[in-house]
């Protein structure tokens, strides 16, 4: 029986990564609630929001996990990459350093996720035309060199935000359809729940180190 009661056919988990302050949370609220907040608070740990879109008459529910951007938080956030079907790596087109971090994020994703994850590179804050530090063709070149999808968005003026999510969800849908999961899809929708998330325990690795003296 199709899951009419839940209102969707497929559930795909996606993660948002990228340096602190590139606009991950605002991209998410723009997509799921059509809201933007100038003073959006720093994300601590991980949070998620959901939204349903239609792809070829199928209702696809995206469960999008928003992660803290600071490098140190990877000890916490990397546990959430596993089981994700897709990832958006965000950078801020007005801050070169956030683009330079993209390679590290890509490596981090590949080391901690399943192999066939669909990854999209997203240059956010495209409304800041006067402060641009990363040219569109630089982003494009990086993406094609690494086999990633690419798009520039602005969570502020909403341009390309829906397009970015629709594109990655469609690609995941096509990929999953080309490689159907075992079993009756109607009976068992392609639901990838986040039930395998386990936080590793770096405390053990650190317990022998002396504590700081301050």
């Amino acid at each position, binding site marked *: 029986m199709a899951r009419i009661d839940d209102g969707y056919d497929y559930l795909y988990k996606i993660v948002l990564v990228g340096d602190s302050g590139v606009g991950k949370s605002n991209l998410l609220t723009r997509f799921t609630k059509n809201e933007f907040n100038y003073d959006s608070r720093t994300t601590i740990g991980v949070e998620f929001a959901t939204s349903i879109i239609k792809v070829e008459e199928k209702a696809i529910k995206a469960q999008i996990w928003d992660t803290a951007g600071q490098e140190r938080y990877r000890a916490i956030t990397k546990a959430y990459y596993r089981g994700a079907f897709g990832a958006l790596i965000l950078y801020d087109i007005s801050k070169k350093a956030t683009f330079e971090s993209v390679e590290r994020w890509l490596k981090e994703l590949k080391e901690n996720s399943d192999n066939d994850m669909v990854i999209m590179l997203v240059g956010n804050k495209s409304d800041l035309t006067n402060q641009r530090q990363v040219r569109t063709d630089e982003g494009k070149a990086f993406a094609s060199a690494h086999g990633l999808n690419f798009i520039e968005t602005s969570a502020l003026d909403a341009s390309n935000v829906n397009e970015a999510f629709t594109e990655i969800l469609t690609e995941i849908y096509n990929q999953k359809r080309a490689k159907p999961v075992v079993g009756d899809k109607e009976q068992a929708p392609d639901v990838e729940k986040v039930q395998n998330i386990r936080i590793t325990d770096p405390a053990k690795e650190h317990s022998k180190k002396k504590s*700081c003296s*301050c």
Partner: protein
Amino acid sequence: MEEQKTKEWKLLLGSSVDRNKRRALRSVRKLAESGIPDKIRPEVYGWLLEPERRLGHYEELASTKIDSEEIAYTISADAVRALPENAHSGLQSSDTLRRILTAYANHCPECGYTQGMSNLASRILKYSLSEEIAYERFSEFMKIFNFAEVFRPGFPLLFRWIRMFEELVATRLPVVHRKLIHHGVTSAMYVDKWFLTGMTYNFSERACERIWDIMLVDGNEKILFRVGLTVLALGEVKGVFDREFEDVVHWLQGGYNNEEELQGKNLDTFIKKATKVVYSRPSLARSIDSPGGVRRIQSAMCLAPQA
């Protein structure tokens, strides 16, 4: 009522007995549990957090450039984002907060700055009368409440607290524990926010005031565990854990604030309930360190239904 309480605090602040001896008194704890009057809170927090010896060098630490560009940048960005709405004036400005966090990162390069610290510092700044005093209190807080260890790269103490909290849930609320495992909801999905920000991230302003009053008087983090457990107990009463995975996580990440139990006069009852949770840190620590302890919980997690 508030007048009477203010009077009692004034008496306490005026006494010359050692701070730690006084804060251990039952009567002082009782006074804190009922909420410290707004008027006198800055003085009480000062009494509880002022270091025995002034640290000094504030101006130098606050104006020295931080070695790591990433940290300097993150501090500037967070200083703006950590302040409560409508608080962008006077002492509670993003510039003040940025300087305090910069001074701390320079004071303790190993701690540097980790997101979440700005929430704590902003809370302390709110009740301080000068920037330098706020900095000294923040440094003292990081030290005596072990938050320096919570935030150290790799979050060593955070992960330990999470395991202790899990053990507490498993033993005190076994039904809730089972349901969460069934959903695949790990404590790391919501407890990290509580611990890293001293609950300032997703509790109402009024609840934060009450939680911090008790925490500062206690001189340790136990109230965070107590409130956390009380939130889970409330969730069970409300039938939250019988809902879908997404509803459960959203509720645990802050949805509980909409429950009437955490609003208005009911907050008193809620806080009182939390303070009644009795547990011993050494025995929790023993059970997570013993061979059977955490493994028992983790193996239970492995039994969670697979997708």
